[in-house]
């Protein structure tokens, strides 16, 4: 409990520091262009890595092929075509439920 709490507190403090960083400092400092480019790549690199970890791996081991992969592919196509969070989440959840139902029928 104590160790978990300490870890979460440190992450919370670090995260608020990063969130508050530019909204409090940017008036006086300019980010170097190279750093700005690197920052703009953080979201796609990290989020794609998170997709790899949560969809393609299951507790560090390759996830067997199944409905999650297919529903994930449907969601990715919908996200790409619509750029809408709402439609992506709807298509993904509907996809996984339908595929599960089909496989059990």
């Amino acid at each position: 409990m104590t160790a978990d709490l300490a870890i979460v507190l440190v992450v919370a403090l670090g995260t608020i520091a990063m969130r508050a960083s530019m909204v409090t400092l940017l008036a006086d400092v300019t980010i170097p262009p190279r750093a700005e480019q690197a920052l703009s790549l953080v979201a796609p690199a990290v989020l794609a890595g998170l997709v790899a970890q949560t969809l393609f791996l299951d507790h560090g081991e390759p996830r067997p092929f199944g409905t999650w992969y297919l529903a994930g592919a449907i969601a990715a196509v919908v996200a790409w075509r619509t750029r809408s969070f709402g439609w992506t989440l709807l298509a993904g959840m509907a996809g996984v439920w339908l595929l599960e139902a089909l496989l059990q029928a």
Partner: protein
Amino acid sequence: MSAVPEPTRNGWFSLADLRAGARAILPLSIGAFPFGLAYGVTVVESSMDNVVGWLASFIVLAGASQLAISDLLDQGAPWFIVIGTALIINARFVMYSGALAPAFSEYPKHWRIPLAHFMTDQATVTSLLHDQRERDRHRRFAYYVGAGLSFAVAWWIGTTIGVIIGATIPEGLQVGFAAPLMFIALAVPSIRDRAALIAAVVGFSVTLMAKDAPMNTGLLIGAAAGIAFGLLAKTRGPEVRDDG
């Protein structure tokens, strides 16, 4: 109250814009609910302390890093890897903070810092889309606050219910799928150019390849590789673009 700036033409803080932000983010807030449930289930099923996992929703307020913390603690990763991975995942907030800085610029620091806490992926993306149509910084800020606060409330409700009923949620509901689904929904729109595509493809592939990396550093290695290759593409991009 004497420190409060003078009202502008649109008022110092517009409740109408606050409501507009909350309305715009509503589909995402609904999406936060299954994701919140999935997080709650993950915490309950992991070796992470349930109360601490629940508290993280309030004080960290960033689902991706919260899932990573829970996952890494469950795998017995050392504390510095857990903290390092979570902070790397959240490093994108520095970029978001820069993008949202104009909207914050008219407000005193004792407003900016606490309200920066609500800077989620969803609130940021919603606000930046709106900023393209809205020039008034006060109205932008109110819109951001409306989006950020309402999304956070949805996340808190979802994770609270998830932690409470986590063990009883039927497997058939597939709430666990909400986590990768949310990351797909966030990752795809973040790919705006060739460099971002390369960063995503490399980040994805290297994370998979590095799955057996010591101390669960796979995501850190994958993200670093993705950013490095994306930067290379940005440097070389204009020259190769003609050939492609």
